[in-house]
């Protein structure tokens, strides 16, 4: 290896944050707005029947067009496909922060839907998580038609 010229590490002297505002499109807008009524919408492909959550305009399996007439209301209940307990959290600048209390995350297949959604899990001890558990959505106090209306998913009692 030939001589390496020394290097100087360069950091931004002032905060430098770029912001993004992604337009969501009509189908996703309907999905988000409907969360206000504590309902989760899916879209059933008219040709192959695959149900997408969140809904969208083009089926990824058979490429058919999916319209607003194909929107279906899901029950908000589902089964836990997979789960993990997070002991760390990624902060906005690329460091892993230790979590004082481990958080559970789940991969959930909602009843009547084919897509898997990834949501935080609450009201359960990480040790009790089991694949196949029945879970349901825990809505925020005051739902306002925002993605944060879904706070977490919790095991179905009884």
């Amino acid at each position, binding site marked *: 290896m030939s001589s390496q010229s020394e290097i*100087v590490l360069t950091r931004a002297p002032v905060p430098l944050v770029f*912001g*993004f505002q992604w*337009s*969501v499109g*009509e189908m996703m807008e309907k999905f988000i707005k409907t969360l206000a009524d504590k309902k989760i919408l899916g879209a059933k492909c008219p040709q192959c029947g695959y149900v997408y959550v969140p809904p*969208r305009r*083009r089926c*990824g399996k058979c490429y058919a067009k999916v319209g607003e007439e194909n929107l279906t209301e899901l029950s908000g209940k589902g089964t836990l496909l997979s789960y993990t307990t997070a002991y760390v959290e990624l902060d906005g600048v690329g460091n892993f922060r230790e979590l004082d209390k481990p958080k559970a995350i789940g991969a959930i297949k909602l009843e009547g839907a084919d897509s898997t959604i990834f949501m935080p899990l609450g009201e359960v001890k990480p040790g009790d998580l089991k694949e196949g558990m029945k879970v349901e959505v825990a809505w925020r106090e005051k739902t306002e038609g925002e993605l944060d209306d879904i706070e977490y998913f919790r095991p179905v009692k009884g």
Partner: protein
Amino acid sequence: MRNVAIIGCGQTKHSGRRRDVNLAEMVGDAVWNALEDAQVSPLEVDAFAVGNMQGFGGVAQPEQWLGDWIGASGKPVLRITTGGSTGGSVAHGAFYAVASGLYDIAVATAWEKHSDSKEPGATTGLGHVGLGNMLNLVNCGVGFKHLLSMFVVGAAAGVACYQAMYYMHRSGCRVEHLDMVAAKDRRNAAKNKYAHLQWPGCTPEDIAKTEWIAYPFRYGHICPASDGASAMVLAREDIAKKRCKKPAWVKGLAAYSDEENQIMSEGAGGIGILDASQQIGATMSAIKAYKMAGINDPQKEIDLAEIYQPFPSQELLFAERLGLFDEGKAWQALEKGEMDINGRIPCDLSGGVNATNAIGSSALQRILECALQIMGKAEEHQVPKEVHNAVAHGWGGATNYITVTVLGDSPY
């Protein structure tokens, strides 16, 4: 080498703010338009070449999320990006996929959605290109006055400003000619339903009324930042002949790199280029592409050109580098109307990048517009003559990545 042709072209409407769709839907629309134009079903597509400048839209490797929207799941996908010439490099990637014999039908798609970033226009991405270098300058104590002199020019267009001055100095081209080019392109864009800045009947005087940014550029000269996507279907010879009445054959292509043209290299070091309008990379790419396409005298054999010109000076200086007009004489050809729709070599009948600039999609659109002209599908801005050979050009980075693509109406 296997002969490869473009058999389908698709675009979305490019405009400043496409807030009616999300990124996946926008790219999906472009690909579906192309597939319908080619009468090819998504199941028949063997491979995809995709690209956009991910820093502008804030989503890394977006094709892994939106692959389902364009029918790419379960298929090979190759992501290619080279700055502004991304669209051209993506089209080259799709060409090589088919020409190599590995695949029979490939889709090339490229896009940009600037309105998804909060900062105006394309400042997010453009700022991030040289951010490391700027911080190195600041750490080495660059004077604020120096930053001012850089930003006052940089705000207009960085290298393009100096590049225009070099070209004007050595060719005699004047600011009025830049007004003429910008007016021509915005008039042309008015006849292209997908273009962004459409100004029917725009005159050089209209452009001359706009405010100066930094001599020689006015606000009226500068390209917009657009949201938009474009896509193309390429197929090998026998499929192309079966599926398409008049396919556009890719007869020559090259993308030769030059040294960075923007006064600074890595860490704000120097560069060995004295005349920013010399563009050796463009000359080299044109030579190679024409040789491959069997074109000896571009001035006679090329019927029309689509040149990547976010700044009007670039339509003139790159037209010369593509051998379409004599050295330093493109502005005179402009005056004589040789670049208009009835001229010897119509340039940028689509309005070009001066009227529509979704960075990923722009260089692909240049090839796509040439293909539309050859296939006779350019509708309002179709050139009223038989198009045998067309050349599409794209530039990226600090005008150091050049794509030149020569299309023809017959494979031989």
